[in-house]
Protein backbone atom coordinates (compact mmCIF):
# COMPACT_ATOMS: atom_id res chain seq x y z
CA UNK A 1 0.00 0.00 0.00
CA UNK A 2 2.74 2.40 0.93
CA UNK A 3 4.48 1.63 -2.32
CA UNK A 4 1.31 2.39 -4.23
CA UNK A 5 0.88 5.72 -2.45
CA UNK A 6 4.45 6.71 -3.12
CA UNK A 7 4.23 5.68 -6.77
CA UNK A 8 1.04 7.71 -7.08
CA UNK A 9 2.59 10.76 -5.45
CA UNK A 10 5.70 10.41 -7.58
CA UNK A 11 3.53 10.05 -10.66
CA UNK A 12 1.61 13.20 -9.87
CA UNK A 13 4.82 15.16 -9.43
CA UNK A 14 6.52 14.02 -12.62
CA UNK A 15 3.13 14.38 -14.29
CA UNK A 16 2.99 18.02 -13.23
CA UNK A 17 6.32 18.60 -14.89
CA UNK A 18 5.19 16.86 -18.08
CA UNK A 19 2.08 18.99 -17.88
CA UNK A 20 4.09 22.22 -17.73
CA UNK A 21 6.04 21.17 -20.77
CA UNK A 22 2.88 20.05 -22.55
CA UNK A 23 1.30 23.43 -21.81
CA UNK A 24 4.12 25.14 -23.64
CA UNK A 25 3.65 22.86 -26.65
CA UNK A 26 -0.11 23.43 -26.61
CA UNK A 27 0.28 27.21 -26.51
CA UNK A 28 2.37 27.14 -29.66
CA UNK A 29 0.20 24.57 -31.38
CA UNK A 30 -2.86 26.67 -30.65
CA UNK A 31 -1.43 29.83 -32.07
CA UNK A 32 0.64 28.63 -35.00
CA UNK A 33 -0.18 24.94 -35.60
CA UNK A 34 3.45 24.04 -35.13
CA UNK A 35 4.89 21.44 -32.76
CA UNK A 36 7.87 23.18 -31.29
CA UNK A 37 10.63 20.59 -31.01
CA UNK A 38 12.98 23.30 -29.77
CA UNK A 39 10.88 23.79 -26.64
CA UNK A 40 13.16 21.66 -24.49
CA UNK A 41 16.32 23.34 -25.64
CA UNK A 42 14.77 26.78 -25.16
CA UNK A 43 13.80 25.87 -21.59
CA UNK A 44 17.26 24.47 -20.97
CA UNK A 45 18.89 27.70 -22.18
CA UNK A 46 16.88 29.92 -19.87
CA UNK A 47 17.42 27.49 -16.99
CA UNK A 48 21.17 27.73 -17.55
CA UNK A 49 20.97 31.50 -17.55
CA UNK A 50 19.18 31.32 -14.21
CA UNK A 51 21.67 28.77 -12.89
CA UNK A 52 24.59 31.06 -13.71
CA UNK A 53 22.91 33.84 -11.74
CA UNK A 54 22.20 31.52 -8.82
CA UNK A 55 25.80 30.26 -8.84
CA UNK A 56 27.00 33.84 -8.78
CA UNK A 57 25.18 34.36 -5.53
CA UNK A 58 21.70 35.52 -6.50
CA UNK A 59 18.68 33.85 -4.93
CA UNK A 60 16.66 31.15 -6.66
CA UNK A 61 13.80 33.60 -7.06
CA UNK A 62 15.88 36.14 -8.92
CA UNK A 63 17.01 33.29 -11.17
CA UNK A 64 13.42 32.20 -11.70
CA UNK A 65 12.24 35.68 -12.66
CA UNK A 66 15.17 36.14 -15.02
CA UNK A 67 14.54 32.72 -16.58
CA UNK A 68 10.90 33.59 -17.22
CA UNK A 69 11.75 37.00 -18.68
CA UNK A 70 14.48 35.47 -20.81
CA UNK A 71 11.92 32.95 -22.05
CA UNK A 72 9.52 35.74 -22.94
CA UNK A 73 12.12 37.51 -25.03
CA UNK A 74 13.51 34.31 -26.54
CA UNK A 75 10.07 33.10 -27.60
CA UNK A 76 9.13 36.41 -29.18
CA UNK A 77 12.44 36.78 -31.00
CA UNK A 78 12.37 33.22 -32.33
CA UNK A 79 8.83 33.63 -33.62
CA UNK A 80 9.61 36.90 -35.34
CA UNK A 81 12.93 35.94 -36.89
CA UNK A 82 12.80 32.22 -37.52
CA UNK A 83 9.23 31.00 -37.43
CA UNK A 84 7.42 33.87 -39.20
CA UNK A 85 8.94 33.01 -42.61
CA UNK A 86 7.66 29.42 -42.46
CA UNK A 87 4.25 30.15 -40.95
CA UNK A 88 1.40 29.22 -43.23
CA UNK A 89 3.72 27.20 -45.44
CA UNK A 90 3.95 23.42 -45.58
CA UNK A 91 3.98 21.86 -42.10
CA UNK A 92 7.18 20.00 -42.77
CA UNK A 93 9.10 23.26 -43.19
CA UNK A 94 8.14 24.36 -39.71
CA UNK A 95 9.05 20.96 -38.26
CA UNK A 96 12.49 21.10 -39.86
CA UNK A 97 13.01 24.65 -38.60
CA UNK A 98 12.14 23.79 -35.00
CA UNK A 99 14.35 20.69 -35.17
CA UNK A 100 17.17 22.87 -36.45
CA UNK A 101 16.54 25.33 -33.65
CA UNK A 102 16.67 22.49 -31.16
CA UNK A 103 20.14 21.49 -32.30
CA UNK A 104 21.38 25.06 -32.60
CA UNK A 105 20.18 26.15 -29.16
CA UNK A 106 21.56 23.04 -27.51
CA UNK A 107 24.91 23.73 -29.14
CA UNK A 108 24.69 27.34 -27.98
CA UNK A 109 24.19 26.18 -24.39
CA UNK A 110 27.26 23.98 -24.63
CA UNK A 111 29.29 26.86 -26.02
CA UNK A 112 28.11 29.32 -23.37
CA UNK A 113 27.95 27.11 -20.31
CA UNK A 114 30.01 24.00 -21.08
CA UNK A 115 28.85 20.43 -21.36
CA UNK A 116 29.47 19.32 -17.79
CA UNK A 117 26.78 18.36 -15.34
CA UNK A 118 26.09 21.13 -12.86
CA UNK A 119 24.29 20.93 -9.55
CA UNK A 120 20.96 22.70 -9.32
CA UNK A 121 19.70 23.43 -5.81
CA UNK A 122 15.96 23.26 -5.32
CA UNK A 123 14.26 26.25 -3.74
CA UNK A 124 12.60 24.13 -1.06
CA UNK A 125 13.56 20.99 0.80
CA UNK A 126 13.44 17.84 -1.30
CA UNK A 127 13.24 15.59 1.74
CA UNK A 128 9.88 13.83 1.82
CA UNK A 129 7.34 14.46 4.52
CA UNK A 130 7.08 11.66 7.06
CA UNK A 131 3.78 10.22 8.14
CA UNK A 132 4.20 8.01 11.19
CA UNK A 133 7.31 6.01 10.44
CA UNK A 134 7.02 6.11 6.65
CA UNK A 135 8.63 8.56 4.31
CA UNK A 136 6.36 9.94 1.58
CA UNK A 137 7.49 10.76 -1.93
CA UNK A 138 6.16 14.24 -1.33
CA UNK A 139 8.39 17.10 -0.29
CA UNK A 140 7.96 20.83 0.10
CA UNK A 141 9.67 21.23 -3.24
CA UNK A 142 7.32 18.88 -5.06
CA UNK A 143 4.40 20.78 -3.57
CA UNK A 144 5.92 23.93 -5.01
CA UNK A 145 6.26 22.24 -8.41
CA UNK A 146 2.67 21.08 -8.34
CA UNK A 147 1.37 24.46 -7.18
CA UNK A 148 3.33 26.35 -9.83
CA UNK A 149 1.97 24.17 -12.63
CA UNK A 150 -1.61 24.43 -11.44
CA UNK A 151 -1.26 28.18 -11.04
CA UNK A 152 0.08 28.57 -14.57
CA UNK A 153 -2.71 26.41 -15.96
CA UNK A 154 -5.35 28.43 -14.14
CA UNK A 155 -3.74 31.63 -15.33
CA UNK A 156 -3.73 30.48 -18.94
CA UNK A 157 -7.33 29.30 -18.80
CA UNK A 158 -8.36 32.65 -17.32
CA UNK A 159 -6.36 34.49 -19.94
CA UNK A 160 -8.00 32.64 -22.82
CA UNK A 161 -11.48 32.64 -21.40
CA UNK A 162 -11.91 35.99 -19.74
CA UNK A 163 -9.64 38.53 -21.37
CA UNK A 164 -9.81 40.36 -24.66
CA UNK A 165 -6.22 39.47 -25.47
CA UNK A 166 -7.05 35.83 -24.86
CA UNK A 167 -10.06 36.04 -27.16
CA UNK A 168 -7.94 37.72 -29.82
CA UNK A 169 -5.36 34.93 -29.49
CA UNK A 170 -7.99 32.24 -29.89
CA UNK A 171 -9.58 34.02 -32.83
CA UNK A 172 -6.16 34.30 -34.46
CA UNK A 173 -5.47 30.62 -33.85
CA UNK A 174 -8.75 29.28 -35.21
CA UNK A 175 -9.62 31.76 -37.92
CA UNK A 176 -6.58 33.69 -38.96
CA UNK A 177 -8.05 35.40 -41.99
CA UNK A 178 -11.35 36.23 -40.33
CA UNK A 179 -9.52 37.62 -37.32
CA UNK A 180 -7.46 39.88 -39.57
CA UNK A 181 -10.59 41.13 -41.32
CA UNK A 182 -12.03 41.94 -37.91
CA UNK A 183 -9.02 44.06 -37.05
CA UNK A 184 -7.16 41.60 -34.83
CA UNK A 185 -3.41 42.02 -35.16
CA UNK A 186 -2.81 38.38 -35.84
CA UNK A 187 0.97 38.71 -36.17
CA UNK A 188 1.22 40.17 -32.70
CA UNK A 189 -0.96 37.45 -31.29
CA UNK A 190 1.29 34.76 -32.76
CA UNK A 191 4.36 36.42 -31.29
CA UNK A 192 2.60 36.66 -27.97
CA UNK A 193 1.67 32.98 -28.17
CA UNK A 194 5.28 31.97 -28.68
CA UNK A 195 6.47 34.31 -25.95
CA UNK A 196 3.96 32.92 -23.47
CA UNK A 197 4.85 29.37 -24.44
CA UNK A 198 8.52 30.04 -23.91
CA UNK A 199 7.77 31.47 -20.47
CA UNK A 200 5.91 28.30 -19.54
CA UNK A 201 8.71 26.22 -21.07
CA UNK A 202 11.24 28.12 -18.98
CA UNK A 203 9.20 27.44 -15.88
CA UNK A 204 9.14 23.76 -16.80
CA UNK A 205 12.93 23.84 -17.13
CA UNK A 206 13.36 25.42 -13.71
CA UNK A 207 11.00 22.93 -12.08
CA UNK A 208 12.61 19.92 -13.72
CA UNK A 209 16.09 21.12 -12.87
CA UNK A 210 15.10 21.25 -9.20
CA UNK A 211 13.71 17.72 -9.39
CA UNK A 212 16.64 16.12 -11.19
CA UNK A 213 19.22 18.20 -9.21
CA UNK A 214 21.91 17.91 -11.91
CA UNK A 215 21.65 19.62 -15.26
CA UNK A 216 23.54 19.33 -18.53
CA UNK A 217 22.65 21.00 -21.85
CA UNK A 218 20.61 17.94 -22.79
CA UNK A 219 18.66 17.62 -19.54
CA UNK A 220 15.35 18.54 -21.15
CA UNK A 221 15.63 16.10 -24.06
CA UNK A 222 13.70 13.17 -22.64
CA UNK A 223 10.99 15.59 -21.69
CA UNK A 224 10.21 16.39 -25.30
CA UNK A 225 8.91 12.86 -25.75
CA UNK A 226 6.94 12.81 -22.52
CA UNK A 227 5.65 16.35 -22.89
CA UNK A 228 4.57 15.65 -26.44
CA UNK A 229 2.74 12.48 -25.43
CA UNK A 230 1.03 14.40 -22.62
CA UNK A 231 -0.02 17.17 -25.01
CA UNK A 232 -1.41 14.67 -27.53
CA UNK A 233 -3.28 12.87 -24.74
CA UNK A 234 -4.93 16.17 -23.95
CA UNK A 235 -5.74 16.86 -27.58
CA UNK A 236 -2.93 19.39 -28.31
CA UNK A 237 -5.41 22.23 -28.23
CA UNK A 238 -6.51 22.62 -24.66
CA UNK A 239 -4.48 23.86 -21.68
CA UNK A 240 -6.60 21.81 -19.30
CA UNK A 241 -6.19 18.79 -21.53
CA UNK A 242 -2.42 19.25 -21.41
CA UNK A 243 -2.37 19.26 -17.63
CA UNK A 244 -4.69 16.27 -17.30
CA UNK A 245 -2.71 14.47 -20.01
CA UNK A 246 0.52 15.23 -18.16
CA UNK A 247 -0.78 13.96 -14.85
CA UNK A 248 -2.21 10.78 -16.41
CA UNK A 249 1.04 10.08 -18.21
CA UNK A 250 3.04 10.75 -15.05
CA UNK A 251 0.91 8.31 -13.10
CA UNK A 252 1.01 5.63 -15.78
CA UNK A 253 4.77 5.84 -16.14
CA UNK A 254 5.27 5.86 -12.39
CA UNK A 255 3.34 2.59 -12.04
CA UNK A 256 5.27 1.09 -14.93
CA UNK A 257 8.50 2.14 -13.28
CA UNK A 258 7.48 0.80 -9.87
CA UNK A 259 5.76 -2.45 -10.78
CA UNK A 260 7.71 -3.41 -13.89
CA UNK A 261 10.98 -1.76 -14.74
CA UNK A 262 12.53 1.66 -15.00
CA UNK A 263 13.79 0.82 -18.46
CA UNK A 264 10.26 0.36 -19.79
CA UNK A 265 9.04 3.91 -19.22
CA UNK A 266 10.15 5.31 -22.56
CA UNK A 267 8.52 2.46 -24.38
CA UNK A 268 5.39 2.71 -22.27
CA UNK A 269 5.04 6.37 -23.16
CA UNK A 270 5.24 5.59 -26.87
CA UNK A 271 2.80 2.71 -26.53
CA UNK A 272 0.35 5.08 -24.84
CA UNK A 273 0.87 7.58 -27.65
CA UNK A 274 0.20 5.00 -30.34
CA UNK A 275 -2.90 3.67 -28.59
CA UNK A 276 -4.34 7.13 -28.07
CA UNK A 277 -3.72 8.09 -31.67
CA UNK A 278 -5.38 4.87 -32.84
CA UNK A 279 -8.42 5.08 -30.60
CA UNK A 280 -8.95 8.78 -30.07
CA UNK A 281 -6.83 10.73 -32.51
CA UNK A 282 -8.25 14.01 -31.27
CA UNK A 283 -7.04 13.34 -27.75
CA UNK A 284 -8.81 11.89 -24.75
CA UNK A 285 -11.20 14.80 -24.41
CA UNK A 286 -12.08 15.41 -28.02
CA UNK A 287 -15.69 15.47 -29.00
CA UNK A 288 -16.54 13.34 -32.00
CA UNK A 289 -16.77 16.52 -34.04
CA UNK A 290 -13.71 16.93 -36.18
CA UNK A 291 -13.14 20.22 -37.81
CA UNK A 292 -12.86 20.78 -41.49
CA UNK A 293 -11.29 24.09 -42.34
Amino acid at each position, binding site marked *: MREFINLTLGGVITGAVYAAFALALVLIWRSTRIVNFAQGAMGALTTFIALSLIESGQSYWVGLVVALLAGLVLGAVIERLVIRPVEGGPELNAVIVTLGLFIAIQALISVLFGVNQRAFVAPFSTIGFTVGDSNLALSPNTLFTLGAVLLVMAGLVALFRFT*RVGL*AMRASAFGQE*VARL*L*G*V*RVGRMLTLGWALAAVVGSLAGMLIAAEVTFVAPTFMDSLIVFGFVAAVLGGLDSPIGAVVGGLLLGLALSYVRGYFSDTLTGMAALVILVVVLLVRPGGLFSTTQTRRA
Partner: protein
Amino acid sequence: MAETGAHGSTAAGAAGVGLSKGDTGRGAATGSSVIAGGGTATADAVLSVEGLSAAYGPVKALDGVTLRAEQGRITAVLGANGAGKTTLLRTISGLVRPTAGRVVLDGEDVTRAPVEAMVTKGMAHVPEGRGVIAELTVDENLRVGSLFRGKVAQDEFDRVYDLFPRIAERRGQTAHTLSGGERQMLVIGRALLARPRLLLLDEPSLGLAPRIVAQIFALLRKLVDSEGLSVLLVEQNARSALSVADTGVVLNLGRVVVTDDAARLAGDEDLRHAYLGF
Protein backbone atom coordinates in the same frame (compact mmCIF):
# COMPACT_ATOMS: atom_id res chain seq x y z
CA MET B 1 -20.41 66.19 -45.91
CA ALA B 2 -23.61 65.54 -47.73
CA GLU B 3 -25.50 62.52 -46.52
CA THR B 4 -28.27 62.81 -49.01
CA GLY B 5 -28.20 59.41 -50.60
CA ALA B 6 -31.12 58.20 -52.62
CA HIS B 7 -32.48 56.61 -49.50
CA GLY B 8 -31.86 59.62 -47.32
CA SER B 9 -29.88 58.38 -44.38
CA THR B 10 -31.26 59.37 -41.04
CA ALA B 11 -28.02 59.26 -39.18
CA ALA B 12 -29.56 59.18 -35.74
CA GLY B 13 -30.78 55.65 -36.29
CA ALA B 14 -32.91 55.78 -33.19
CA ALA B 15 -34.42 52.34 -33.17
CA GLY B 16 -31.77 50.38 -34.99
CA VAL B 17 -28.48 48.69 -34.31
CA GLY B 18 -26.70 51.91 -33.51
CA LEU B 19 -24.68 52.02 -36.66
CA SER B 20 -24.31 55.74 -36.58
CA LYS B 21 -21.58 56.66 -38.97
CA GLY B 22 -18.36 57.12 -37.07
CA ASP B 23 -16.94 60.45 -38.11
CA THR B 24 -18.63 61.88 -41.10
CA GLY B 25 -16.05 64.60 -41.43
CA ARG B 26 -13.21 62.50 -42.66
CA GLY B 27 -14.31 62.06 -46.24
CA ALA B 28 -14.90 65.73 -46.81
CA ALA B 29 -11.41 66.76 -45.80
CA THR B 30 -9.51 64.94 -48.50
CA GLY B 31 -12.17 63.34 -50.64
CA SER B 32 -14.33 64.76 -53.34
CA SER B 33 -11.64 65.75 -55.80
CA VAL B 34 -10.57 62.14 -56.20
CA ILE B 35 -14.00 60.86 -56.95
CA ALA B 36 -15.52 63.84 -58.68
CA GLY B 37 -14.86 62.46 -62.12
CA GLY B 38 -16.62 59.18 -61.49
CA GLY B 39 -19.69 59.36 -63.68
CA THR B 40 -23.11 60.54 -62.64
CA ALA B 41 -22.55 61.11 -58.96
CA THR B 42 -25.92 61.33 -57.35
CA ALA B 43 -24.52 60.39 -53.96
CA ASP B 44 -21.16 60.40 -52.26
CA ALA B 45 -18.99 57.42 -52.93
CA VAL B 46 -18.02 55.69 -49.70
CA LEU B 47 -15.78 53.46 -51.71
CA SER B 48 -14.33 54.04 -55.08
CA VAL B 49 -12.30 51.44 -56.89
CA GLU B 50 -10.23 52.76 -59.75
CA GLY B 51 -8.68 50.58 -62.42
CA LEU B 52 -8.06 47.74 -60.01
CA SER B 53 -6.16 44.72 -61.32
CA ALA B 54 -5.07 41.60 -59.51
CA ALA B 55 -3.55 38.31 -60.54
CA TYR B 56 -2.87 34.86 -59.16
CA GLY B 57 0.47 34.09 -60.70
CA PRO B 58 0.05 34.46 -64.44
CA VAL B 59 -3.73 34.36 -64.22
CA LYS B 60 -5.35 37.76 -64.29
CA ALA B 61 -8.35 37.75 -61.97
CA LEU B 62 -9.20 41.44 -62.10
CA ASP B 63 -8.48 43.60 -65.10
CA GLY B 64 -8.93 47.31 -64.54
CA VAL B 65 -12.11 47.25 -62.49
CA THR B 66 -13.65 50.63 -61.72
CA LEU B 67 -16.73 50.96 -59.58
CA ARG B 68 -18.13 52.89 -56.66
CA ALA B 69 -20.23 52.09 -53.65
CA GLU B 70 -22.43 54.99 -52.73
CA GLN B 71 -23.44 56.27 -49.36
CA GLY B 72 -26.63 54.67 -48.08
CA ARG B 73 -27.03 52.33 -51.02
CA ILE B 74 -26.61 48.68 -51.87
CA THR B 75 -24.31 48.05 -54.79
CA ALA B 76 -24.49 44.51 -56.12
CA VAL B 77 -21.56 43.00 -57.99
CA LEU B 78 -22.82 40.16 -60.16
CA GLY B 79 -21.32 37.64 -62.47
CA ALA B 80 -20.69 33.97 -63.08
CA ASN B 81 -18.24 31.76 -61.26
CA GLY B 82 -14.73 32.97 -61.90
CA ALA B 83 -15.80 36.45 -62.91
CA GLY B 84 -13.57 37.88 -60.19
CA LYS B 85 -16.22 38.86 -57.66
CA THR B 86 -14.58 37.34 -54.62
CA THR B 87 -11.15 38.49 -55.73
CA LEU B 88 -12.55 42.00 -56.03
CA LEU B 89 -13.65 42.05 -52.40
CA ARG B 90 -10.43 40.40 -51.24
CA THR B 91 -8.39 42.98 -53.10
CA ILE B 92 -10.44 45.85 -51.70
CA SER B 93 -9.82 44.67 -48.16
CA GLY B 94 -6.15 43.96 -48.78
CA LEU B 95 -6.14 40.16 -48.55
CA VAL B 96 -5.00 40.15 -52.17
CA ARG B 97 -2.55 42.83 -53.25
CA PRO B 98 -3.48 44.58 -56.50
CA THR B 99 -1.07 44.74 -59.41
CA ALA B 100 -2.52 48.08 -60.47
CA GLY B 101 -5.20 50.57 -59.51
CA ARG B 102 -6.41 52.21 -56.35
CA VAL B 103 -8.93 51.67 -53.58
CA VAL B 104 -10.27 54.86 -52.03
CA LEU B 105 -12.36 54.69 -48.88
CA ASP B 106 -14.03 57.91 -47.80
CA GLY B 107 -11.50 59.86 -49.78
CA GLU B 108 -8.52 58.09 -48.26
CA ASP B 109 -6.29 55.94 -50.44
CA VAL B 110 -6.24 52.58 -48.68
CA THR B 111 -4.75 50.51 -51.50
CA ARG B 112 -1.71 49.59 -49.42
CA ALA B 113 -3.31 49.67 -46.00
CA PRO B 114 -2.88 46.52 -43.92
CA VAL B 115 -5.87 44.19 -43.74
CA GLU B 116 -6.16 44.68 -39.99
CA ALA B 117 -6.54 48.43 -40.43
CA MET B 118 -9.49 48.37 -42.81
CA VAL B 119 -12.05 47.71 -40.14
CA THR B 120 -10.80 50.65 -38.11
CA LYS B 121 -11.33 52.80 -41.18
CA GLY B 122 -14.99 51.84 -41.30
CA MET B 123 -15.06 48.89 -43.66
CA ALA B 124 -16.19 45.43 -42.60
CA HIS B 125 -15.68 42.46 -44.92
CA VAL B 126 -17.74 39.32 -44.45
CA PRO B 127 -15.86 36.70 -46.43
CA GLU B 128 -17.29 33.91 -48.53
CA GLY B 129 -18.19 30.73 -46.71
CA ARG B 130 -19.53 32.70 -43.78
CA GLY B 131 -16.36 32.99 -41.76
CA VAL B 132 -17.66 32.02 -38.37
CA ILE B 133 -14.93 30.85 -36.06
CA ALA B 134 -16.38 27.43 -35.37
CA GLU B 135 -14.41 26.79 -32.19
CA LEU B 136 -15.67 29.92 -30.44
CA THR B 137 -19.12 30.38 -29.00
CA VAL B 138 -21.68 32.59 -30.69
CA ASP B 139 -21.10 35.27 -28.10
CA GLU B 140 -17.33 35.08 -28.48
CA ASN B 141 -17.67 35.36 -32.24
CA LEU B 142 -19.58 38.59 -31.79
CA ARG B 143 -17.04 39.87 -29.31
CA VAL B 144 -14.18 39.30 -31.74
CA GLY B 145 -16.00 41.71 -34.07
CA SER B 146 -15.78 44.51 -31.55
CA LEU B 147 -12.32 43.73 -30.15
CA PHE B 148 -10.56 46.51 -31.99
CA ARG B 149 -12.94 49.09 -30.50
CA GLY B 150 -11.94 48.34 -26.94
CA LYS B 151 -14.66 48.00 -24.36
CA VAL B 152 -18.12 47.85 -25.91
CA ALA B 153 -21.36 48.27 -23.99
CA GLN B 154 -23.48 45.16 -23.55
CA ASP B 155 -26.51 46.80 -25.13
CA GLU B 156 -24.74 46.86 -28.48
CA PHE B 157 -24.58 43.09 -28.32
CA ASP B 158 -28.20 43.01 -27.18
CA ARG B 159 -29.22 45.04 -30.22
CA VAL B 160 -27.57 42.53 -32.54
CA TYR B 161 -29.33 39.72 -30.70
CA ASP B 162 -32.60 41.62 -31.12
CA LEU B 163 -31.99 41.70 -34.86
CA PHE B 164 -31.25 37.97 -34.92
CA PRO B 165 -33.31 36.26 -32.25
CA ARG B 166 -32.27 32.86 -33.59
CA ILE B 167 -28.66 33.31 -32.67
CA ALA B 168 -29.58 34.93 -29.38
CA GLU B 169 -30.97 31.59 -28.25
CA ARG B 170 -27.61 30.00 -28.99
CA ARG B 171 -25.23 32.57 -27.66
CA GLY B 172 -23.43 30.17 -25.33
CA GLN B 173 -23.04 27.37 -27.88
CA THR B 174 -20.00 26.88 -30.04
CA ALA B 175 -20.59 28.21 -33.52
CA HIS B 176 -20.10 24.86 -35.26
CA THR B 177 -23.56 23.86 -34.02
CA LEU B 178 -25.22 26.62 -36.06
CA SER B 179 -27.07 26.09 -39.32
CA GLY B 180 -25.99 27.85 -42.47
CA GLY B 181 -28.56 30.61 -42.08
CA GLU B 182 -27.65 31.15 -38.45
CA ARG B 183 -24.00 31.37 -39.39
CA GLN B 184 -24.78 34.03 -41.95
CA MET B 185 -26.74 35.98 -39.34
CA LEU B 186 -23.88 35.63 -36.90
CA VAL B 187 -21.26 36.97 -39.29
CA ILE B 188 -23.45 39.88 -40.36
CA GLY B 189 -24.16 40.68 -36.72
CA ARG B 190 -20.46 40.43 -35.98
CA ALA B 191 -19.63 42.79 -38.82
CA LEU B 192 -22.24 45.27 -37.53
CA LEU B 193 -20.51 45.31 -34.15
CA ALA B 194 -17.51 46.80 -35.90
CA ARG B 195 -19.81 49.80 -36.67
CA PRO B 196 -18.86 49.93 -40.32
CA ARG B 197 -19.94 52.60 -42.75
CA LEU B 198 -19.35 50.15 -45.57
CA LEU B 199 -20.14 46.47 -45.46
CA LEU B 200 -18.60 44.08 -47.99
CA LEU B 201 -20.67 40.92 -48.25
CA ASP B 202 -19.43 37.93 -50.21
CA GLU B 203 -22.17 35.57 -51.41
CA PRO B 204 -24.42 35.76 -48.36
CA SER B 205 -27.03 33.64 -50.13
CA LEU B 206 -24.68 30.73 -50.80
CA GLY B 207 -26.28 27.46 -49.79
CA LEU B 208 -29.20 29.07 -47.98
CA ALA B 209 -32.90 28.41 -48.41
CA PRO B 210 -34.66 31.13 -50.46
CA ARG B 211 -36.75 32.14 -47.46
CA ILE B 212 -33.63 32.79 -45.35
CA VAL B 213 -32.01 34.67 -48.22
CA ALA B 214 -35.08 36.90 -48.48
CA GLN B 215 -34.98 37.52 -44.73
CA ILE B 216 -31.33 38.47 -44.77
CA PHE B 217 -31.69 40.73 -47.78
CA ALA B 218 -34.73 42.44 -46.27
CA LEU B 219 -32.76 43.09 -43.12
CA LEU B 220 -29.88 44.53 -45.14
CA ARG B 221 -32.29 46.86 -46.89
CA LYS B 222 -33.64 47.97 -43.54
CA LEU B 223 -30.17 48.67 -42.16
CA VAL B 224 -29.23 50.61 -45.25
CA ASP B 225 -32.41 52.69 -45.24
CA SER B 226 -32.58 53.39 -41.53
CA GLU B 227 -28.93 53.64 -40.61
CA GLY B 228 -27.27 54.96 -43.72
CA LEU B 229 -25.10 51.87 -44.01
CA SER B 230 -23.54 51.27 -47.41
CA VAL B 231 -23.22 47.78 -48.80
CA LEU B 232 -21.11 46.27 -51.53
CA LEU B 233 -22.74 42.93 -52.16
CA VAL B 234 -21.16 40.19 -54.24
CA GLU B 235 -23.66 37.65 -55.47
CA GLN B 236 -24.03 34.85 -57.93
CA ASN B 237 -27.73 34.81 -57.16
CA ALA B 238 -28.37 37.81 -59.40
CA ARG B 239 -32.14 37.79 -59.24
CA SER B 240 -32.28 38.10 -55.45
CA ALA B 241 -29.41 40.55 -55.35
CA LEU B 242 -30.95 42.88 -57.94
CA SER B 243 -34.26 42.82 -56.10
CA VAL B 244 -32.62 44.38 -53.06
CA ALA B 245 -29.82 46.45 -54.61
CA ASP B 246 -29.86 50.02 -55.88
CA THR B 247 -27.08 49.62 -58.38
CA GLY B 248 -25.76 46.59 -60.19
CA VAL B 249 -22.28 46.01 -61.55
CA VAL B 250 -21.78 43.03 -63.84
CA LEU B 251 -18.34 41.47 -63.93
CA ASN B 252 -17.12 39.07 -66.54
CA LEU B 253 -13.63 37.58 -66.64
CA GLY B 254 -12.28 40.28 -64.38
CA ARG B 255 -13.76 43.24 -66.23
CA VAL B 256 -16.79 45.40 -65.63
CA VAL B 257 -19.29 44.72 -68.42
CA VAL B 258 -21.98 47.13 -67.34
CA THR B 259 -22.90 49.34 -64.40
CA ASP B 260 -26.51 50.42 -64.14
CA ASP B 261 -29.52 50.94 -61.98
CA ALA B 262 -30.51 47.59 -60.47
CA ALA B 263 -34.07 47.66 -61.72
CA ARG B 264 -32.92 48.45 -65.25
CA LEU B 265 -30.42 45.61 -65.16
CA ALA B 266 -33.06 43.19 -63.97
CA GLY B 267 -35.25 44.27 -66.89
CA ASP B 268 -32.58 43.86 -69.55
CA GLU B 269 -33.29 40.46 -70.94
CA ASP B 270 -30.25 40.13 -73.21
CA LEU B 271 -27.88 41.06 -70.44
CA ARG B 272 -29.55 38.70 -68.03
CA HIS B 273 -29.23 35.81 -70.42
CA ALA B 274 -25.66 36.63 -71.34
CA TYR B 275 -24.17 37.16 -67.89
CA LEU B 276 -26.61 36.59 -65.09
CA GLY B 277 -28.16 33.27 -65.90
CA PHE B 278 -31.81 34.05 -65.28
